[in-house]
């Protein structure tokens, strides 16, 4: 296969994955939240409401596409694309297995964060261009939150880069192969040094993925619908598809960084070559487990207030993340070599 053709096939399969994820995650979200709230969720269309989302997609595609009279037309059309394209690009560096990934970047981790960091601009523009105060307030909140929490999120993954010695997501997974004392898998989550880092990562990533308890950008009780209030039909669809896909990407990142990516504990490496679908399946299953955990939090806790959120980010998480970087550096490069005698 020629390189150009391979690239096109890769891009198309990522789009397919993104759309499938979107459709499936909406159903899953309704079911998970439904059961957490002790109700059933969608039940009527298809077995257990399985086809409900398909109906919703058709509805979104055929609905009238409204544009408010006072909207800034150009930006109103541009904003959903600015939201959608980066979240599509964020898939490119994810390693689904040793060989199955769109690109193998030395800076894969940074690439994913760089792509996700463009999303708030689109949200802010969406809020502003629709020309209503709820939209603007939602967009402002969302952008302020996501800028603030990008800093601890980036800082919180640095200890992992320091320990594994690479920022390539595939390399980070490779660094987690094997076991400690032949029992505990060497996933980074089993390293006590990284536990505080993991907590910082979870909090900041919930905010990056715009999940309750941190979804102030669309707080329907005070902001109607936030930045998406005036969007309808497929523009609305794009904005929310991107939100779901960001949730997937963030969860996939968490799996890659802390839970060994596509690795199964105690399984010899030859198995992955023998069964090529094993690694991607494991990766996607782990990612969905992470997503369900995020939604468990979402269904359990009420929203926090925006000023409390800002305090938490700037005054607690950023200093904590900085301390963890210094601590990891000292432990990993000074103390561990003292015991093992190895100079890394």
């Amino acid at each position, binding site marked *: 296969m020629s390189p150009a053709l391979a690239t096109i096939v890769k891009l198309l399969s990522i789009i397919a994955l993104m759309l499938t994820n979107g459709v499936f995650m909406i159903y899953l979200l309704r079911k998970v939240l439904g059961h957490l709230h002790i109700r059933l969720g969608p039940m009527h269309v298809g077995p257990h409401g399985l086809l409900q989302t398909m109906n919703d997609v058709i509805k979104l595609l055929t609905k009238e596409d409204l544009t408010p009279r006072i909207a800034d037309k150009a930006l109103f059309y541009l904003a959903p694309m600015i939201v959608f394209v980066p979240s599509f690009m964020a898939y490119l560096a994810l390693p689904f297995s040793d060989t199955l990934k769109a690109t193998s970047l*030395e800076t894969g981790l*940074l690439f994913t964060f*760089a792509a996700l*960091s*463009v999303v708030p*601009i689109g949200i802010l523009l969406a809020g502003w261009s629709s020309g209503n105060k709820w939209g603007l307030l939602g967009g*402002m909140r969302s*952008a302020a939150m996501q800028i603030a929490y990008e800093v601890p999120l980036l800082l919180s993954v640095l200890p992992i880069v320091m320990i594994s010695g690479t920022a390539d997501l595939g390399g980070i997974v490779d660094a987690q192969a094997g076991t400690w004392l032949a029992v505990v898998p060497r996933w980074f989550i089993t390293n006590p040094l990284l536990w505080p880092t993991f907590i910082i990562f979870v909090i900041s990533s919930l905010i990056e993925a715009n999940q309750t308890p941190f979804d102030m950008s669309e707080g329907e009780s005070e902001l109607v619908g936030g930045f998406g209030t005036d969007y309808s039909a497929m523009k609305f669809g794009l904005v929310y598809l991107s939100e779901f896909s960001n949730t997937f990407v963030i969860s996939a990142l968490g799996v890659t960084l802390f839970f060994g990516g596509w690795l199964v504990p105690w399984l010899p490496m030859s198995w992955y070559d023998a069964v090529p679908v094993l690694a991607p399946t494991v990766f996607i299953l782990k990612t969905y487990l992470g997503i369900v955990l995020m939604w468990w939090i979402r269904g359990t806790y009420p929203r926090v207030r925006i000023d409390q959120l800002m305090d938490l980010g700037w005054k607690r998480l950023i200093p904590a993340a900085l301390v963890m970087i210094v601590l990891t550096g000292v432990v990993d490069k000074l103390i561990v070599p003292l015991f093992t005698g190895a100079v890394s």
Partner: protein
Amino acid sequence: MSTTLPAVAFYLLAFAALYGAISMMSTRNVVHATVWLLEVMLATAGLYLVLDAEFLALVQVLVYAGAVAVLTLFTVMLTLRRREDAVRPFPTAWGSLAIAALFTGAMLLAIRGFCPVGVEMPAIAPGIEEFGRELFTTWMVPFEVASLVLLVALVGAVWWTGGDDR
């Protein structure tokens, strides 16, 4: 790989950057101007990618597009009372053209004095490992000075906005 593909990419990106810059200065709407600025930043990141400077391109996107552009938009939107205020009170195109010409002249002189035009590209672009080692050994002091300058700017900004006491 032949040189055609990078050349095409270069011309497209250069056109995008220049067109974005011109549109930014000529549009009367300040929010649109910020969006054009964002486009210029992204096109510049693309130019870095053409030069194989992967890390620099990503940092450009992360810092300039992801943070600076959002902050600019934020400031613009916070200072607007009404949406009609988003219009520049006076045209800036000619003034900015003059400044751009002056700046280009100065940069051209500086770059010509610094190294001969047409330096050969290295066969393999250095990765982040070499980059980091270089940054934290040879360029350690300038790096720390730069971060101090940023810290001073930060403290200044906090002082400027005034705490509860001032």
